[in-house]
């Protein structure tokens, strides 16, 4: 088990290096001249040349790559042109907001998706199953940005129940940042009203973000449950007199959970990617919004920084999923 974990961590580091190289290739193989892109459309040749030297873009690609990787190893993601601050610092400042959103959304997806999938498998082809089928297919097809706008229209503008956007109103003093997650920090600081306000703010974006994820967790879990429930060892368990409830809720669920876990890992990454949409709609001050606004103003380093960061979170999540796999499945432990 330990060597297994060690190997996973090693893979994680390797993949990180790979992603760093990938982002380098993307930025440099692209036909555009990065210096010109940075300088903007109205820049003179001189200005472009200056920027080129300043950013080390006049060196050979190999040299640039070495410098780039060296900087990364030191945690240097470059500097944002717009804010002139180190990208790493900004990414770390924005990351907790994104993570908070993703965690809440993922929680929703699992807590609703797994039981619903289980139920629709048990009552296959029943009314509940029909409803969840339509629900789950349309869930994946729903454009997050449009869905977000519709929810804003209904709950914030029309009904006035929930705030339109943002993470906290300007007037509310944020709690001391321990974890960076407002929901947790406000509870730790005992500011229950702040907790309530930030909870109201996170509901809509979390729902939008979790919807497709919930749908696919539901589908996978349902499919796996159906397959497991038809398997020989479930037939055997029934023949030996184990109660139906125990068979479904314990035996079958544990077996069906393995592929569901894989889907959860996959969807975690997908959610991180979708934050660029949801955060744009809801003005949520996370790394997604940061990446979008930087991209729109041709500020390239932050975009790369955010991509690396998202890749990092994704790999960590997948590593955790792999470990959970080994924890659940005894056949993997020895390998």
């Amino acid at each position, binding site marked *: 088990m330990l060597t297994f974990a060690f190997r996973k961590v090693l893979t994680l580091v390797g993949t990180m290096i790979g992603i760093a190289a990938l982002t380098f290739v993307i930025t440099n193989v692209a036909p555009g001249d990065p210096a010109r892109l940075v300088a903007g459309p109205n820049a003179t040749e001189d200005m472009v040349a200056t920027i080129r030297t300043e950013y080390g873009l006049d060196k050979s690609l190999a040299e640039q790559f070495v410098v780039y990787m060296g900087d990364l190893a030191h945690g240097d993601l470059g500097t944002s042109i717009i804010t002139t601050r180190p990208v790493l610092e900004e990414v770390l400042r924005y990351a907790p907001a994104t993570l908070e959103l993703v965690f809440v959304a993922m929680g929703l997806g699992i807590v609703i998706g797994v039981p619903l999938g289980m139920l629709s498998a048990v009552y296959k082809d029943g009314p509940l199953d029909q409803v969840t089928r339509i629900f789950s297919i349309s869930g994946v097809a729903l454009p997050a940005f449009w869905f977000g706008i519709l929810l804003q229209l209904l709950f914030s503008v029309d009904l006035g129940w929930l705030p339109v956007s943002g993470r906290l109103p300007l007037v509310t003093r944020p709690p001391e940042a321990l974890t960076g997650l407002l929901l947790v920090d406000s509870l730790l600081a005992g500011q229950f009203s702040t907790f309530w306000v930030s909870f109201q703010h996170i509901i809509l974006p979390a729902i939008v973000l979790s919807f497709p994820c919930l749908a696919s967790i539901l589908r996978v879990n349902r499919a796996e449950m159906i397959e497991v429930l038809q398997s*020989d060892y479930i037939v055997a368990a029934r023949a030996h007199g184990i109660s139906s409830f125990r068979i479904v809720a314990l035996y079958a669920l544990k077996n069906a959970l393995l592929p569901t876990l894989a889907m959860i890992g996959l969807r975690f990454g997908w959610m991180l990617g979708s934050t660029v949409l949801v955060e744009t709609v809801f003005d949520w001050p996370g790394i997604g919004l940061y990446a979008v606004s930087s991209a729109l103003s041709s500020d390239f380093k932050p975009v790369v920084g955010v991509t690396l960061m998202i890749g990092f979170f994704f790999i960590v999540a997948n590593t955790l999923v792999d470990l959970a796999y080994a924890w659940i*499945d005894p056949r993997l432990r020895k390998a």
Partner: protein
Amino acid sequence: MSLLDIKDYRLDIDTFDGPVHVLKGINLSINRGDTLGIVGESGSGKTVLVRSVLGIGPRNARVIEGGISFDGQNITNLSEKEWAKIRGIRISMIFQDPMTYLNPLFSIGRQISDVIAAHEKAAGHGVSPKAARRTRTEELLDQVGLPNPAMLFSQYPHQLSGGMRQRVLIAMALAGKPDILIADEPTTALDVTVQAQVLDLINSLVEKLNLTVIMISHDIGAIATVARRCAVMYKGEIVEQGLTRDILSNPQHDYTKRLLSAVPDIDAAPERVAARPAASEPAKSRFLLEAVDLKKVYRSQSGEDFTAVNSLSLSVRTGEIFGVVGESGSGKSTLARMLLRLIDPTSGDVIFDGQNISGLSEKALRAMRRHMQFVFQNPHSALNGRHTIGDAIGEPLRLQTKMGRREIEARIEALLDIVQLPRLFKYRYPHELSGGQKQRVCIARAIALNPRLLVLDEPTSALDISVQAQVLEFLQQLRAEMNLTYVFISHNLAVIRQICDRTIVMKHGEIVEQGETEQIFLHPRENYTRTLIESGRKTSQAADL
């Protein structure tokens, strides 16, 4: 009054093409202490029948008529709650393939003690503490002859051998001290020697625990070893029932007669198809195929070496049927593939008709393949489901010859004639054919190029017994007509005795014994060979007679 009574039981299963009558009026009764065997080939409905006794039949099944009563209680349409008092407690079941019937994610101990807990709950008194259940579990494991139950308790199914898993399943079935034990093909997935052990175990349990046993199997030998009474099922009906001994010695129904005559008898000297070509064309040497010092070492992912075949030499005479017999893991399939260089040997040479094929280039080897062909174990997966039968048979012609489209079509039809299949079949797809028909197609494909050598890897083990007999007979005819040499690989000793001239016995990648087949069966020199024959005899029909 009998313990279990099945009366006029009719059952349909709904499918896309309408209902299929799976059981057509079954009448069967079993008394306490009885051992009943149900014999039938695939599709006879025997599994559906015994599963109905436990209420775990297929989902879309409908009882049309009749019913089942157990100990005076009608159990045809019980609720799940009422079943809980019967399943595993009064009637329990063991299954065919012990790997798939154990949950891979739970330990052996956990699975058995859960069953114990379920029984205690159903009986109405509270669930006993964990430690007590553990003791009981270890007792059960001990009872079925498993060594070291304490260690076994925390192990997982994948860590056990097939025979051990079957014993675990039996222990689980005995947890509730059942009145009736249903055994659904309990030995089919096991090796011959393990089969014999499991049958012995069932027999000893019947005696010790006064069990009533219903065992279903396609293997008449296994039934004869365990069951005193026996019923023969065919297409959803019981065509004959009575004392096993009577049925075996004096079958009444046509189907039973056919079935019994199809079972190869390990103790019968074969009647050979005499037509051995008197003066075959002079081959370059007396031996068509020779293997010298063949060795195959696999490296597993963890870096350990596993020797599948070790320094094995053999020579196959032109025109003979050369048998290779061994249990699973003996390396016989690896050997077969190396003989045709479908797998490259780690070291050693294969000489075909005086030419060493180990050193041949890819291109020369491909050309060589027209002289030596392979027939695979499982005809269901040896044919590409996306190709028509005609495509499959014509493929070697398209690859190896310059025949035109029309010639190939004609040849395909000729080949279908040879393997006795309708010509229309060339437009059909494999899934529309039965197992025996598919194997014939595979054979047609193998002989399309008029090869001189056929290597047959368990060509009948995926087929029903009556089909197996037909295919074996056909293979013998074919050899005589086409001047073929066979290397015939099998785990079934009776089949080997029936058709092979000379035989090698393999174990752990090495030859244990070799010689004339009759000689080996009549006067085995090695202990292992003797055990094999003994176990084979136990599962062969002559057992109790």
